[in-house]
């Protein structure tokens, strides 16, 4: 369903190469890294673990890609995760049936996203500012829902979303992959992807061309909030509890990082949801690698910082015509920028 031509593969080369390098380093640090075994009807192994742990960030990155492609950013996804996780846990404890809980939690996420979208599209606020409001207030709201305690639950239906498996594949992976497939299909099989790129490149020009950019922005931010609530449910189900303070903490930054690693520019425009998901996998492979090799997990932060700096250098190098310069065919500076 995705046209994988050679040009796309060449474009994805840096990310694929770095993923392979990280996986190889992981293999050196932990020889059993590539082993996958079937146990109790569920797949186990470090590779599966990378995908399983990476699923929430993959889901966040899918929504974040759309937002960043529209030349925005959503800082509130971590807080929205906390809110929907808190709501799901509290409602489960209060005895609501599972479908109601899921619909309520996803609906809350959608509402949070729409709120951001209204601020960005109709109030014309900068996305950073608009989503900052919910980032600050969101955790407070989550605390309000859980009344300050960590709400734990034992309802098997909800836990299934975090630790269950279907046909041997853990649920988080299944959810993330289905969302990925649906999102790519919607974005690339309809005109929506093109329209998102268009408002990301020039919003007022798109509006003049007859595009209802306000409605589209509203939909994009709503979708991002929806993704955040999905990730929030998975994380809450995984730890069988909702921690309003720590659920999804700093995950907004991981999601943005995943999108940037995937090659989508922070200045909006051309984007690839699949590459963002790949970026999220790369980040998780780094996380897992550091844990497996016995380094303290805190080294992760330094590694992430270095990755950002290297990517920035590479992007700036190519946008200033560095590669062409090296090839000896230095043309004009403009034109090369996308």
């Amino acid at each position, binding site marked *: 369903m995705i046209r994988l031509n050679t040009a796309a593969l060449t474009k994805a080369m840096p990310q694929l190469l770095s993923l392979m390098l990280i996986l190889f380093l992981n293999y050196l640090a932990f020889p059993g890294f590539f082993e996958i075994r079937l146990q109790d009807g569920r797949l186990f192994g470090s590779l599966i673990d990378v995908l399983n742990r990476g699923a929430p960030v993959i889901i966040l990155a899918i929504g974040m890609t759309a937002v960043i492609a529209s030349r925005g950013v959503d800082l509130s996804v971590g807080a929205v995760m906390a809110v929907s996780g808190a709501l799901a846990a509290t409602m489960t404890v209060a005895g609501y049936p599972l479908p109601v809980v899921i619909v309520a939690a996803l609906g809350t996420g959608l509402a949070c996203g729409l709120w951001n979208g209204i601020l960005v599209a109709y109030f014309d606020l900068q996305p950073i*500012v608009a989503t900052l409001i919910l980032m600050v207030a969101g955790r407070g709201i989550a605390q309000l829902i859980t009344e*300050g305690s960590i709400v734990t639950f034992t309802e098997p239906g909800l836990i299934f979303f975090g630790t269950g498996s279907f046909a041997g594949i853990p649920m988080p992976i299944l959810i993330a992959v289905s969302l990925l497939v649906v999102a790519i299909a919607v974005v690339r099989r309809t005109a929506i992807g093109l329209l998102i790129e268009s408002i990301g490149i020039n919003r007022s020009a798109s509006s003049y061309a007859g595009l209802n950019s306000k409605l589209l922005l509203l939909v994009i931010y709503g979708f991002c909030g929806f993704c955040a609530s999905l990730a929030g449910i998975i994380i809450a189900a995984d730890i069988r509890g909702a921690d309003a303070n720590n659920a999804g903490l700093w995950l907004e930054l991981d999601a943005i990082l995943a999108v940037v690693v995937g090659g989508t520019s*922070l200045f909006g425009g051309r984007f690839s949801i699949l590459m963002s998901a790949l970026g999220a996998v790369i980040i998780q492979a780094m996380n897992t690698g550091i844990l497996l090799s016995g380094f*303290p997990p805190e080294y992760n*932060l*330094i590694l992430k910082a*270095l990755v*950002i700096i290297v990517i920035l*250098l590479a992007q*700036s190098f190519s946008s200033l015509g560095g590669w062409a310069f090296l090839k000896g065919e230095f043309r004009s500076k403009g034109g090369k920028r996308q």
Partner: protein
Amino acid sequence: MNTRLLPLCATLLICLIAYAACVFQFPAMFSTRVAGNLLTDNAFLGIAAVGMTFVILSGGIDLSVGSVIAFTGVLLAVLITHYGVHPLIAFAIALLITTAFGASMGAIIHYLEVPSFIVTLAGMFLARGMCFVMTTDSIPIDHPFYTALQGLFYRLPGGGRLTFIGCLMVLVFLVGIVVAHFSKFGSYIYAVGGNRTSAELMGVPVARTTIGIYAMSGFLSGLAGIVFSLYTSAGYSLAAVGVELDTIAAVVIGGTLLTGGVGYIAGTFIGVIIQGIIQTYIVFDGTLSSWWTKIVVGVLLFSFIALQRILVFLSLKRTTATSGG
């Protein structure tokens, strides 16, 4: 009246009303004790917020503030407790490192033409990671010089204490006001924040200014870290998580536009005090939980941003009306 002063006036008014309402409910809040504590408890936040105001005035953002505060605290604790370095020398080392750190972020932002958001995000990860590399424990600082600085206060009538760090914050604000409004560098910052291209065409040294702004933010974050370590007498790698959000909130509540070019340092001071008042009120009330701070700050953020949008909208309307278009 100048519409640019309106957000500042609104902030001041809300601050006074909030304080009056608090005093009405808890008369004990009208005391020099509370006022002194407001300054002491928010000293590190205020100092970092001055740096953030300059960054936001220039149209950028600095997400590394909280991590740099924690980094400074841990560095001081390691230097003083583990290596027996005199605090004054440790302060100098810390300020040197944080200033250089800020300056290099500024250089990357300017020369690589990348958004400040992502560069300072990397800086945030790097500084927090460096904390963990130094130590993951909470290290106490027990040095006679610290005790002397902590014991340094002026007793106000009514039992309030004007502490050293509280005074330091006020001093930083005063210097910030002078730099912003009465120096060449300050007018460069406003020019770059208003419109970078036209500032460059007017001959403003944009490179020097940008690097200077982030170096100053780094320096002030380092100073905030020193104050924080004086306040807590310890260095801990997980300290000051999310302080960057509090400072950004203080700056926005203080009436500075996040698009850059418009705002006052004095407004930030009021923004910090408003956050302090909310916290004090919660302490006085005793039944409310601290998460209400976040919600109230969120609501305030929203109201101020909405107010700013309305003002910008009105002033745009007026300019088009007067220019006849």
